[in-house]
């Protein structure tokens, strides 16, 4: 099983805070890998909010190809973070040339583009780089997006974090998501490692998505280039969220209605019965069958947690105003935020979405039985 930990804090925090929480929960994961998503950044990268940041792993040859490619488009390096790694990696961690985190200036020719077009081009640039990397075996690309850093590597989370010296100011962030364990269902592949990211949306999942194949078939046939990959059955959760927000124009409150729609008897008394029935029928192919606990981050830096209909996976949200954490297990939460009112800890059940927005003042709970706020 995977273990997940996410935190959202008023003050930028070191990613080590999340990695240590994973270490506390180590009985629940096999230490085969770690994935990190950092956003709402502190440090120097936090000051360049609009600049897209490229995260990935490169060989020296890959770096050359990357520079050539980016210069060709017109991207100029704005800020480069170098991770000086010891010569020999600890056991279980492969030797890499470069862990890259680099902010770029947009090409001049992109000036004046609409936000939508800009977002699309960033996505396409990432996908092109990913494809180049897959062909040459010299680059692994995690994200290319403003205010987002991602890092994934094989090996025990704490060992990897110490090896990469993650406890540094440049990596401090207000939103941190961390997952421990490589995906073991399919071949070991860093693209199968959580969290997954697409155009400002990230999610990570605990559990196995038994409805994976039909969902993958549905998403892959939407004609949207970002719906690809699927080295892990959990990647679809990120994409379903993207589909809900971007293609359907609905909010996070609707996400549960897409992945685990209400049963008919519950639908009957619901204030938006008609809408929910329409959603249930037309999005039937996106219904997950769990068991899954999903923790994700929205483009507005809100963090959320949902469970599938069976609610067979652990997950708890707790904290205090200014600092909240989402954790697979209470021991992870206890280790990170011991000073909190534990009575207010919340374990989302089969109807709930737990949300902490970027104000970080409270945990908002919305139930599927509540009226669904609709965008006007």
């Amino acid at each position: 099983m995977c273990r997940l930990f996410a935190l959202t804090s008023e003050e930028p925090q070191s990613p080590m805070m999340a990695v240590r929480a994973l270490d506390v929960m180590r009985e629940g994961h096999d230490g085969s890998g770690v994935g990190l998503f950092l956003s709402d950044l502190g440090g120097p990268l936090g000051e360049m909010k609009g600049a897209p940041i490229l995260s990935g792993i490169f060989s020296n040859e890959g770096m050359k190809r990357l520079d050539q490619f980016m210069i060709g488009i017109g991207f100029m390096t704005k800020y480069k973070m170098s991770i000086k790694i010891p010569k020999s990696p600890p056991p279980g961690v492969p030797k890499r040339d470069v862990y890259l985190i680099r902010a770029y200036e947009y090409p001049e020719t992109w000036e004046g583009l609409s936000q939508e077009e800009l977002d699309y081009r960033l996505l396409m640039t990432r996908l092109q780089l990913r494809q180049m990397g897959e062909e040459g075996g010299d680059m692994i690309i995690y994200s290319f997006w403003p205010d987002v850093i991602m890092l994934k590597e094989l090996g025990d989370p704490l060992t990897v974090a110490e090896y990469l010296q993650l406890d540094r100011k440049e990596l401090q962030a207000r939103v941190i998501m961390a997952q421990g364990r490589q995906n073991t269902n399919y071949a070991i592949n860093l693209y199968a490692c959580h969290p997954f990211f697409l155009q400002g949306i990230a999610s990570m999942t605990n559990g196995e998505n038994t409805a994976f194949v039909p969902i993958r078939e549905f998403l892959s046939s939407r004609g949207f280039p970002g719906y690809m990959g699927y080295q892990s059955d959990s990647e679809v959760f990120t994409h379903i969220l993207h589909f809900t927000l971007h293609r359907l124009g609905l909010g996070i409150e609707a996400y549960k209605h897409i992945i685990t729609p209400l049963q008919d008897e519950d639908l009957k008394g619901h204030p938006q019965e008609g809408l929910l029935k329409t959603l249930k029928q037309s999005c039937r192919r996106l219904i997950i069958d769990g068991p899954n606990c999903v923790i994700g981050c929205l483009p507005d830096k809100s963090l959320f947690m949902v469970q599938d209909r069976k609610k067979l996976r652990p997950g708890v949200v707790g904290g205090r105003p200014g600092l909240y954490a989402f954790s697979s297990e209470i021991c992870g939460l206890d280790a990170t935020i011991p000073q909190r009112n534990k009575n207010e800890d919340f374990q989302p059940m089969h109807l709930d979405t737990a949300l902490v927005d970027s104000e970080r003042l409270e945990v908002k709970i919305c139930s599927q039985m509540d009226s669904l706020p609709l965008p006007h």
Partner: protein
Amino acid sequence: MLSNGFTTPSSLSVKDLPWQIRWEKDKCSLCGRCAAVCPVHTLELGVFRKRLVSTPDLSQPTPDSPPATVYQTYQGIRQKTDPAYACVGCATCSLVCPNDCIMPFRTDETDKFRFHVNRGGQARNRGGRRNAPDAAQGGLLDQIKFPRISMLTDPALDAGRHEFELRSLLGRILPPEESLKFFHEQGWTPPVREIYPLMIGGMSFGALSPNMWEGIQMGVSYLNEEMGMPVRICTGEGGCPPRLLRSRFLKYVILQIASGYFGWDEIIHALPHMKEDPCAVEIKYGQGAKPGDGGLLMWYKVNKLIAAIRGVPAGVSLPSPPTHQTKYSIEEAVAKMIQSMYMAWGFRVPVYPKISGTSTALAVLNNLTRNPYAGALAIDGEDGGTGAAYAVSMDHMGHPIASNLRDCYLNLVKLGRQNEIPLIAGGGAGKNGKLAANAAALIMLGASVVQTGKYIMQAAAGCVGSEADRCNICNIGLCPKGITSQDSRIYRRLDPEKVAERVVDVYLSFDTELKKIVAPLGRSTSLPIGMSDALAINDKAAAERLDIDYVV
């Protein structure tokens, strides 16, 4: 025949017949029930002459010594060998025999009868099924396994106690973006029904006896109203009894319109009196058992009641044309027919075509994806059954359902329209009695709904048909169980109440078995349509063809 007599080409011995009757003289009470009940009159009274040879006491011959040879006679039954009266193996004689002294047995070699069933130039005509005796190999659907068992990475579910929502949708489902748009604009969206994924396929009022029809309808109503299972039944081509058309039970019924339009006069006249809309309308363009051939109700079965409902004279054969006479192109005429049927119920009832399994199914499907009114596509494979057809059609024409369905589903995936046009698969599900496993396999290959007919006849009414060419006389209305007979002396044998009970039994046990399949796969929240990663087969070619795993 005498040893020096002569034979005609069709002089057959009992050995040449497909079914041979063994009769035990010692146990027979000569009650005559077997001969009375035999639907094909193969049994006749036999008077047998028998010579007894005894050896007299030759040491003291007297004039009173009995003769060395004594002739005796005894009575019993004799099996006719005229092909017109050949035993069909139904074993109704065994059913009625008080002393269990009679039973038909299948011949141990290929019978000679098959070369002589075309007397008068009439090609063999029968009811039943394809008679492909591959039960020993299990048939393709039976060979499919479900190897993706939830083990330690995700818990398997408890089939007995977990909540399951195993429902399917019938009707055109719009892509999410469009359906939300229409919802907000309060525009028309195609009607969609939420139904149980096992549907009773089209068996007409006419093909089935009134008692059988009534029994199934009662069972379906009970399942809906007492058990909360939205089971639907298709009428087949033969209309619908007027009282049912005007009842609230119509909502459980899918009305079929086929190329003979039988019964539609009655249906159209009932339109203003309908309390409920029917579940859907099925336009039959083809049937798996006799693809490319129209429906057929032979004159034996067209009694007054059937004739009245169908709007035809009694006592004439009713062959439907192989195609709808107004159809010259799918682009225009089929689309128009679908729309006309929608119009009849104010665009509130889904309308979908049914075709027989064919290698041209993809062309039909591709066209339907561009027709926003097409509510589904039903495909009926070659193993489907029928009340009457030419044997050659049943035996050799058609397409197996598995690969036909899979091609269609994968094509929809390519177009991004999977489940928007639900695929309804039929023809062979439960052929060897494994209905739930076959249905689950079809669902995971891409079917939204599975249709079954023969299984219901066998399980709910005791049809004795088998893949060994047993009985198969549905066409001439002599069904010994009264399932497909229109003769009240025969169909009174069948108690509709008991049929209804059995329909309920079948569905409840099917439901348990389906849960026993999906629960270990970790599925409960939705029907696992297209979950092909859960399927495997130990036949490499089949695995490749169906794009599922190969396991040994």
